[in-house]
């Protein structure tokens, strides 16, 4: 299957759940999809043996977020250059990138800060667990139904509400407590 055919096939498979399609590169399409349809769309791709999951990644769009329960986070947001009454509520775009030869299809969901969750796809693709754990600790997204919610990359004593790949995050205010394993 050549690249164009592969992209057309994927677009056709995902058509029932597609909100919009963009073509950022000749060999790549980005399909915007709602969270509730995400797993159905991915299952359709897998059932059709269309490619493999290459990556799950997040991109933070801070906007003008609604107040968060974490007071500290809100203080930081007020200090940040991203705060502006004219901007919409912040969101995180989550990309699920599937590849088939040279063709890449990105399924994109964009949960807002006030309702930050995505469904786990581990029941469909078990190896997604590592990327979901990374997404949770780096962006503070809740991955509903993921089998393992422990830290993958950050230390165990990493404080709650500190998400390094959010745009407002400039580092920890204080050093982490010493590890219990150290003498």
């Amino acid at each position: 299957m050549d690249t164009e055919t592969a992209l057309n096939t994927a677009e056709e498979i995902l058509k029932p759940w597609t909100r919009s399609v963009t073509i950022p590169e000749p060999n790549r399409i980005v399909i915007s999809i709602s969270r509730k349809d995400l797993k159905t769309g991915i299952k359709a791709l897998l059932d059709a043996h269309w490619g493999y999951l290459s990556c799950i990644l997040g991109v933070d769009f801070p906007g003008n977020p609604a107040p968060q329960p974490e007071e500290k986070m809100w203080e930081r947001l007020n200090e940040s250059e991203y705060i502006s009454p004219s901007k919409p509520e912040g969101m995180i775009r989550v990309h699920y990138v599937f590849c088939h030869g040279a063709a890449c299809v990105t399924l994109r969901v964009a949960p807002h800060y006030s309702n930050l969750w995505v469904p786990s796809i581990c029941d469909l693709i078990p190896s997604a667990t590592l990327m979901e754990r990374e997404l949770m600790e780096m962006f503070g997204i809740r991955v509903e139904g993921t089998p393992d919610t422990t830290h993958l990359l950050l230390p165990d004593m990493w404080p709650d509400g500190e998400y390094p790949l959010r745009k407002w995050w400039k580092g920890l205010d204080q050093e982490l407590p010493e590890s219990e394993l150290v003498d």
Partner: protein
Amino acid sequence: MEAKPKPNKFVVPIGPQHPALKEPGHFEFTVDGEVVTGASVRLGYVHRGIEKGTESRNWVQNLYLLERICGICSHVHAMAYSLGVEKLAKVTIPPRAQAIRTLAAELERIHSHLLWLGVAAHEGGFDTLFMYSWRDREVVMDLLEMITGNRVNYSVNLLGGVKYDITQEQVDALRKGMDFLEQRSHHYLKVVTTDETFLGRTRNVGLMSFDQAELLGALGPTARASGVQRDVRVDAPYAAYDLYPVKLITDPRGDLEARFVVRINELFESYRLVREISANLPAGELSVRVPRRIPEGEVISRVEAPRGELFYFLRSTGLDTPDRIKVRTPSMGNWASVMTLTIGQNLADVPMILSGIDPCFSCNDRMVRLLRPGVTQTWSWEELRRFGIEHYK
């Protein structure tokens, strides 16, 4: 990946510091007698916050930062990044530069596969093979040093081309080096496929079927040793791979032996490519200009690193710094397979199965923290240098 330990079972923790692993990773294997019944992995011991770091550096500085993600496949990280930035900037680099990038990538694959052969042999208790393969690896390390002046971070890439040209003397040295390594690799292939003791550690050990490899998202030689026909150099040729096509190497058997065979056969293909590219280098310039501010957009750049598909996502908002860079390394894709493969195997085979995927923890983890009382966490270069001297006194 985690399989929950059952009650009344014995859990064997391995790492983060362990003689069987030269890089820090923590694994917990639940065992029933000698048989592994569950496995979990914990990474992050060499997490350095590189993705976050790229957002506060300009596009050129990031080339040097990203090349340091891994000390083994440094070139391929810089190449994936450069290809992505050039795509965003809509810049086409000269054919000679493309060829030199490809040549360096194949030399890197040779040193990486020979390094892996030594490590895997060592994990299996075959230290003679380990020492011979690492002795021979010096040939390709010397060739890389001859071309670039460096053995590890070669710094071949520029945004818009390459820094180093290849002279006729270097072409001759490359051919001579490839001839020697090819002859040695035939010997290694014979050893790993005929030595009874070696086969006792590899044949039918760590079996992964084609379907399992697909389901678990295995990549690179690990997947190809289960018959998966996937190689970015073949599927989506980049740099000069369209001019110098690569023959896909696969093996359907799916065991550790197949992983040895696939990697050694890939060495032969790399020797051929190095000879072919160096003998047919296109004439012309080495670089073109790339703007300081990169136009707005998002691109994906995929290349075939020695361990498998390396994935870069780059997003620019039109500034001289990126908005987001995501790096997904092949080891990240291969962990799921190894955690599954160890179940049902003897605990003694675990180090071999782990090394079978050629794991790279630095690639995965992309902040070193020294958690000791009274020691500051941000060190100056001088403090670090002094610590090194005191530590090794």
